[in-house]
């Protein structure tokens, strides 16, 4: 876990951010509990996310979660960082590996650039062993001050 020793940054104003800052990670142990709730709100009832057998038929060792939920985790990570008055301008994510049942998924972000009140961030989600599930970039804007 490469962020555990780094300082975590609360909802912020632009003046307190520096390149290299790590965002406070967003962590979830993932299982049917999370996926079925997500399916509930997004009407995304996929057999391979509800049923181990169905996932095995598709060649995966067990059920796996929606890319869309990784997407939400990344947004939750960004929202905590920007606070209620910041905005998310752009997010770009690729899904590299399936989020298998019972993995603990951690969403991380690192500040890579600051331009005026716009902050660029590298972000990713990883499982317990550190393998990256989703990787991407974001642009957010923070309140000045």
């Amino acid at each position, binding site marked *: 876990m490469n962020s555990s020793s780094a300082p975590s940054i609360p909802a912020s104003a632009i003046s307190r951010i520096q390149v290299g800052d790590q965002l406070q990670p967003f962590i979830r142990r993932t*299982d*049917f*509990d999370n996926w*079925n*709730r997500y*399916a*509930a*709100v997004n*009407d995304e*009832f996929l*057999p391979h996310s*509800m*049923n*181990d057998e169905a996932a095995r038929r598709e060649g995966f060792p067990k059920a796996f979660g929606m890319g869309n939920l990784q997407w939400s985790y990344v947004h939750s990570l960004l929202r905590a960082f920007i606070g209620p008055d910041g905005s998310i301008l752009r997010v770009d994510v690729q899904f590299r590996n399936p989020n298998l049942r019972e993995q603990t998924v951690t969403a991380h972000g690192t500040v890579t650039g600051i331009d005026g009140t716009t902050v660029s961030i590298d972000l990713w989600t990883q499982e317990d062993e550190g393998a990256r599930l989703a990787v991407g970039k974001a642009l957010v804007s923070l309140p000045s001050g």
Partner: protein
Amino acid sequence: MTVKVGDELPTFTRETGFANWNRYAAVNDEFVPIHMDDAAGEAAGNGGAFGMGNLQWAYLHNMLRSWIGENGEILSIEVQFRSPNVKGQTVTAKGVVTAIDGDVISLDVWTEQQEGTKLAPGSAKVKMGK
């Protein structure tokens, strides 16, 4: 429509499994391990995950609503959950008229699986839509 004692209602049928149960959990916030995880259902002695009694309840309501029509009324309903609704079962909600008293119709209602075993037997009182 003239209703008489002994009339059977048009049935309501669903093949049941995670696809129905998780949708029901979605609207009822009923995310219980025994309903979404085979291992948890097995640990509870049901050989796998099984469906919510509340969904059997909803299926009985669906059947009644379609029979009584737009302006009908379900006055009361009562069921017992006798047997678990396990994955892959085809569940059918059925009803039969047992008595008529003025405009109040009494019914036996139940859900059964494909072999005819009753899962949730009960009774209801309804008024037909005018």
